């Protein structure tokens, strides 16, 4: 298994010891740039981010780890009790959290659970499927009811992001920052324009896969706990 990224650099000695004792290989990183530079060839196996000393730096790193091209999906953040409020609205930036000061066995247990939950080999999922829609993340191809969809790059990226998060409502701002990054072209209306195009390409039967949530944003499909049958 590849190394975990650990923030900050150097990490608190207690954390370093815990990881070593538990047998993880890890590298400490000081910034998103640093993490990109030192990333193992197979990508980071996960990340442990201590947020209590430098919260801004910590969240910046989490955000970078979630960037679509090297999405790290085992992200444990360590926060102080006073920071619990900071977790709100950042749900998409971590997979689990732990309070500081931490208990070594708790960090170890949570990490072990994250790794177990996501399987030990494949960090990236190759196929995203949802009622007739299939996205192959390796070949960048999308199809609906086995017919290929011809998408532009940004249409594909937007559909991929939405389909990976069924049932979740995203604001336009979130979609812009998560899918386009901050250097988008054409302004915030871009999201509406792309949604409109995607619906047209999905075809009448499937256009309602992407729903407009009035004065909030957009939602793809249904969440798992919804009683309503998924749109077909």
């Amino acid at each position: 298994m590849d190394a975990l990224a650990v923030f900050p650099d150097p990490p608190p000695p207690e954390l370093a010891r815990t990881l070593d004792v538990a047998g993880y290989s890890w590298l400490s990183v000081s910034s998103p740039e640093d993490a990109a530079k030192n990333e193992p060839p197979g990508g980071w196996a996960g990340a442990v981010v201590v947020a209590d000393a430098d919260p801004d730096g910590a969240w910046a790193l989490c955000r970078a780890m979630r960037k679509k091209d090297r999405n790290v999906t085992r992200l444990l953040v360590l926060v102080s009790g006073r920071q619990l409020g900071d977790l709100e609205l950042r749900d998409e930036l971590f997979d689990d959290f732990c309070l500081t000061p931490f208990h070594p066995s708790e960090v170890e247990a949570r990490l072990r659970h994250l790794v177990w939950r996501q399987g030990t080999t494949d960090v990236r999922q190759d196929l995203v499927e949802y009622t007739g829609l299939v996205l192959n993340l390796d070949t960048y191809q999308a199809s609906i009811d086995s017919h290929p969809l011809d998408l532009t790059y940004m249409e594909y990226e937007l559909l991929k992001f939405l389909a990976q998060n069924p049932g979740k409502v995203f604001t336009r701002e979130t979609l812009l920052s998560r899918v386009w990054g901050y250097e988008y072209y054409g302004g915030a209306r871009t999201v509406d324009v792309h949604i409109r195009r995607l619906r047209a390409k999905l075809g009448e039967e499937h256009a309602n896969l992407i729903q407009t949530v009035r004065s909030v944003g957009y939602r793809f499909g249904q969440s798992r706990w919804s009683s309503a049958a998924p749109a077909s």
Partner: protein
Amino acid sequence: MLEQQKDYVLHTVEERGVRLVRLWFTDVLGNLKSFAISPAELENALEDGMTFDGSAIDGYSRIQESDVLAMPDANTFEVLPFGDTKTPEARVFCNIHNLDGSPFDGDPRQVLKRNLQVAQQLGFDFYVAPDMEFFYFAPPVAGQPPQPLDAAGFFDLTTTDVAGTLRKQTIRTLETMSIPVEYSFHEDAPSQHEIDLRHTDAMTMADSIMTFRLIVKEVAAQQGVHATFMPKPLEGVQGSGMHMHLSLFRGDENAFYDEDDLYNLSPTAKAFMAGLLYHASEITAITNQTVNSYKRLVPGFEAPVHISWARNNRSGLIRVPIPKKANPTATRLEYRSPDPATNPYLAFSVLLAAGLRGIKEGYELPAEADANLFEMSDAELAKLGIAQLPQSLSDSLRVMEGSSLVFEALGEHIFEWFLRNKRSEWRAYKTHVSQFEHDRYLRSL
């Protein structure tokens, strides 16, 4: 990001078995130009661009150096929905650069990009939605007048409507090429149709208009029909316009919207509109670039003649459409003189420059002209301070020549070339002796 886009394009070419990739760009007159490369060359092209000789392209020629570099914009890569499905083709729009990598001054797309950057520095994104009008005719025969396909009027429905079927196919094809359609209908004139595109940022829209004109012609040609964007193909019925619905957004907010204003227009919208009105004559050579364009801009055919604005007066140059309910994002200005033969990159550039000038200099918006201007005498119009748009290509070129605004917006290269090229078009027209003259003068004089 760039790496990923490239990857996306290369994978798609491979997976879909694309045989040919068309590199698209636009000459100064607004004609779509293209050269094709094989998929094997694509990676190289995405990385370093493709060199080609620009001297054959209208408006690209220079004295010292004729080679230019086409850099594909990977964001615009799409598989083309027509042609043989067994040997699919794709297209990608290109930015044209000099060999040293700097933007090439003769490339209309680079010109628009530069003008959009000016707007972005002021915090604005420029959005456009055009109403595209065009005619379907039987394939043209030299020396014969155009033959309309039908004689149906506005919103007419007939069961055996060839043109209606064509329009439906066209819209389907547009949607698969990421060009959303808002409305479509049969227009006033026989065989005239209108397809309204949904608003998007100006660069995407300019690309979309280039694609649109190709798709309309292509789909029609498959059924043996000739589609034309000629501004006034038939005498005595209305011509084809390309009304442009314009708005500026600041992030998510429509900068043209003001809840408290009577017409929901913000001070920004009013100053932008004042800029358009003030500079309208100067930019008309660009928005109406053919001799034929000025045969559309005459009274009585729903085309504007006078430089005025109103909330709901279709005889004026600018209309302020009433949005459905109170919809802040739909507040916009409809600029009505352009025709679909314009170069969209250049037209958007000069419209934006004129409007921004109004904002920067704080132009005062003249009073609304809500009467029917076609029924007013020249004296009445003069009293209201309402001028006319240039009456011919020659007139509009003369006004454009003195315009520092258009010079700055287009850059010296295109400004000079355009005037030269269009002057020679005017000269060719001026020396032509028409049927009109024979009919009127041959016997009587």
